[in-house]
């Protein structure tokens, strides 16, 4: 059985590789909502990557970055969806 540190490292590698479809969809997505969906998924994946990296490094600051990125990513997605819906944000 593999140890916890190795499992964390393997998970980090898989997660970084898994962001490639998001980047492809952001670049070549056929419509604008496709790109927003991909951006939302990329934000969620980055929160997880920052969390795992912070845990591996034992850094208390990077986990704050993960929390803040979760909040900012949600607000950005909501603002873009409102803009698509109404043509203005507020």
């Amino acid at each position, binding site marked *: 059985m593999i140890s*916890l540190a190795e*499992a*964390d490292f393997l*998970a980090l590698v*898989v*997660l970084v590789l*898994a*962001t*490639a*479809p*998001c980047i*492809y*969809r952001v670049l070549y997505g056929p*419509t*604008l*909502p*496709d790109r*927003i*969906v*991909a951006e*939302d*998924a990329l934000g*969620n*994946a980055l*929160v*997880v990557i920052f*969390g*795992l990296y*912070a*845990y591996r490094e*034992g850094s*208390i600051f990077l*986990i*704050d970055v*993960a*929390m803040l990125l*979760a*909040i900012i990513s*949600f607000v950005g*997605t*909501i603002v*873009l*969806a*409102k803009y*698509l*819906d109404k043509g203005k944000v507020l």
Partner: protein
Amino acid sequence: MVDLIETLSIGCLLIGVLALSLGMIGLLRLPDVYNRLHATTKIGTLGAFGVLLSIMIQEFGTSGLSPMGVKALTAGLFILLTSPISGHMISRAAYKMGVDLCEGSILDEYEGERKD
């Protein structure tokens, strides 16, 4: 006790990473916005929350109830709460904007609500 924590955290990590990878494959392969949204919502709920819960369990095993574990769990719960909301708003905006359903769709219950 240590074995239990190790098994639990590796199980949560495996479920989370699997859900995240499958969601990304779905984002790449599925034919239309609504299907892609159906795949990527799993990333937010099961994937992100699973991995961050695994971090919290590992941190609990090594150093008890520490700030890092609590912050990781907070970020996971926040994603768990907000990911369905953003998915719903994107799909509503896409439908009102006029993005069509894919070729093989057989039912559109929201038809007629579209903004002309």
